[in-house]
């Protein structure tokens, strides 16, 4: 069985950063409809800074826990906004989940998803159905914790999670925002996708394809 290492973490964040850069304009436009149009900038800049920091301090002694903590801190201070504290909290939770080890078996990777869900939920005090990024992270986390069994592979599990997140993001269209800036729009937020859920679904899509590539290469 292959493993997930500290340098894999850097590689994964590079893939996150690339995708967020590609989605920057779309996310900004989605956010402009119901918020302040800054979500694309925040996600792109935040993940770029995190990926760069991970690459810069990659040394032999860093653990996965250190890596996730670093990524969270750097992301937080690169962007602020709501995205910063929420993903910082998520990555701090992931640091605890992965712990002070230099690598974990590859099939532990899906545990990242419920860790992120719990971290975001804890900092933002939101619930699924509030029309936030939780509406993508929650169904994905549910796939990992309730629906995957050991017989199905890691990549299949991540793919199923990504699909659940994509559907969850699409479902935010009919929701009325009750958290964050869009909540001030009340009923007028209905009919629009939540940009935070869309970016979360994109991250999960990246995670699944990154894992597939990784598995093919090792």
């Amino acid at each position, binding site marked *: 069985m292959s493993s997930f290492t500290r340098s894999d973490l850097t590689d994964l964040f590079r893939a996150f950063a690339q995708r967020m850069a590609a989605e920057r304009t779309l996310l900004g436009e989605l956010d402009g409809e119901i918020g302040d149009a800054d979500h694309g*900038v925040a996600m792109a*800049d935040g993940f770029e800074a995190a990926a760069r920091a991970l690459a810069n301090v990659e040394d032999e002694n860093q653990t996965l826990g250190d890596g996730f903590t670093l990524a969270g801190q750097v992301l937080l201070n690169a962007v*602020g*906004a709501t995205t910063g504290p929420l993903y910082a909290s998520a990555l701090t939770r992931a640091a605890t989940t992965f712990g002070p080890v230099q690598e974990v078996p590859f099939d532990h990777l899906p545990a990242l998803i419920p860790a992120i869900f719990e971290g975001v939920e804890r900092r933002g005090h939101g619930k699924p159905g509030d029309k936030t990024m939780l509406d993508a992270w929650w169904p994905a986390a549910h796939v990992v914790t309730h629906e995957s069994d050991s017989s199905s592979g890691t990549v299949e599990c991540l793919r199923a999670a990504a699909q659940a997140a994509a559907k969850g993001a699409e*479902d935010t269209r009919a929701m009325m925002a009750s958290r964050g800036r869009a909540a*001030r729009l009340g009923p007028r937020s209905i009919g629009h996708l939540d940009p935070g859920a869309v970016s979360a679904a994109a991250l999960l899509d990246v995670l699944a394809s990154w894992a597939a590539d990784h598995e093919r290469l090792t």
Partner: protein
Amino acid sequence: MPARGTPRSAAPTGDKRAPTRFGEDMLLWAAWLYYEEGLTQAEIATRIGVSRPSVNAYLADARTRGIVSIEIDPDRFRALTLSQAMQTHFGLNDCMVIPSEGNDNPLTDRLGAAAAQVLRHLTKSGETVAVTWGRTMLAMASHMSHGALRDVRIVQATGSTTAKIPWTPEACATRLAENLGARCIPLSAPAIVSTAEVRDMLLHEPVLAEQMEVLAQADRIVLGISSLRPESTIHTSGLFDEVSIRDHYHAAVGSIAGRMISANGARVDGPLEGRTIGMDLDMIRKVPERMAVAGGMDKVQAILAALRGGYVSTLVTDADTARAILTSEGYEDRPPRRPDAPSEALPERTRVKKFLNRPRDAVDEAIAGALLAHESILAPVDGAPRAIRARHGPRSGKVGLVIGGGSGHEPGFLGYVGQGMADAVAVGNIFASPPPDPILAATKAADGGTGVLHIFGNFSGDLMNFEMAAEMAEAQGIAVRTVVTTDDIASAPLDTRSARRGVAGNVFVFKVAGAACNRMLPLDKCAAIAARAADRCLTMGVALEPGASLDTGRPSFRLGPDDMEIGVGVHGEPGVARTQVKSADETADLIVDRILDEINPANGTEVALLVNSLGSTPQMELYILNRRLRRRLEAHGITVHLTLLGHYYTSLDMAGVSITVMQLDLELKELLNDPCDSPAWSRA
């Protein structure tokens, strides 16, 4: 001329000449008598001495010649178009849309009353009608009245519950049957039983089997739709008490007849599925006439799911809900076109020209320029490029004042740093809260050993980042108090003031708090004064053009050529409502009316007034608005102690204005009068 409908006045007789005001024009006179005075065509014929068919011809002529135009009340018209759009889009037999605003009764009650009407109208003698439970169902049952129907049977669609709620399945069925004069057939079993075996056994009991048989013959079902939101009655129904909806029904967005459905209306199975007694989703779909009664913004997703799943053939809802459902499906609800609306739209602003280098450098370059422009007042904070301190401000023994928020509000935030104002500021990206690090750096720079006061507007990002920074400062031994401003009256109702945004009222709060700190008052006293100032600020904004994103150069939302947005915040986000562009005086009135509604007479009659451009509205227009504002405030017995007018708190280049009124007491007035020296506000 409006359509007829005015009460008919007693017709004087014998006057056969057209009165002079109609200039001998019989046509106009006939139209007047018919539409304005409400006479019948026969009465008009007698009155003006022509035949009835001539009157009829006059009236038709008056229509075609444009003397009379018939206008349908736009609200009713929209309800009608919404109902038709719902029918077409979801293939419904019928959709009744009631106005969302009505008397003071709760929406469930008003929907219930409407549903009772529809049901009485549709139900025929001899029919079997199944009914579910819930607030709306009970309201419907209560509004039902005895008709001429005979031999109608009302069947309970689900088993019973022991929950302590008035709208149990048995209560809804019994009440409906009673009021309709129908026979009630209960389901003599609990809705949820302990095991699947018990359920199967019970279903073989002759009494229950017979009742289920009646249920299977239902001609019609009336059902409520429940959301799974925290406020939903499903959580008090007792049905799901023993299982975690979150763990077992995570894919569910709503519930009908106690069965969970997904966003697409598919069945969501869980541990209770085999233990539930009553109609299941397949049975419901087979009932020929399925009338759902539900409304409310929290239910939009659940109603949409029920419509997609085919559980509804007739819907009773309200206009806002119908519109939201259709919007989710991509339908655009346009107001009926006014005849005088210009047919040619002006070209839309698609890309706004800006003085920029790389957009991503904009914030840092603006900070650099501000530090140079105001070098006698502002100084950088070492090691923290996004923190700025006052050159003369922080001093030993004085409470430090730290403010902050996103960029794009210039002179917002850094313009209010200086002596007698804030001691330091943390600057975020465009419209984004600064992260904790610069806030902490600003806090340390402002600390004079007696604690630091944080003041910022109420936005989730600022709350999280300032809270984290405050925790870090406390850990380093700096006492921090926080005041969050909530002056934007359009962003939430008064009873949820803590949910409101903090906007231009910040300017007054920063000044008052800065003066309090400058007088060397202790931290708690400074915080209390700032909180009182924040509480007394009322702001409302309107926009004529959206601002343009620095990143894309595009407007951040769309506003039609004749539209103006009411209740905008300061982040380029849309407001709370949209209306036709109004004149300066009408706009001032619209804002001042809302503000006066919330003025507390107990807080005195003297105010500070801020007439603020949101970016590209020029000072000239602000003066025009100010003239009307002053007249209205004066008429209300309010005097203006101090006026600020200009660019004080902007939203990039949005065209628009915000008006802030702060009610003053003696202390607040004195603090406003204190000297200060900051880039945006100096007072000797």
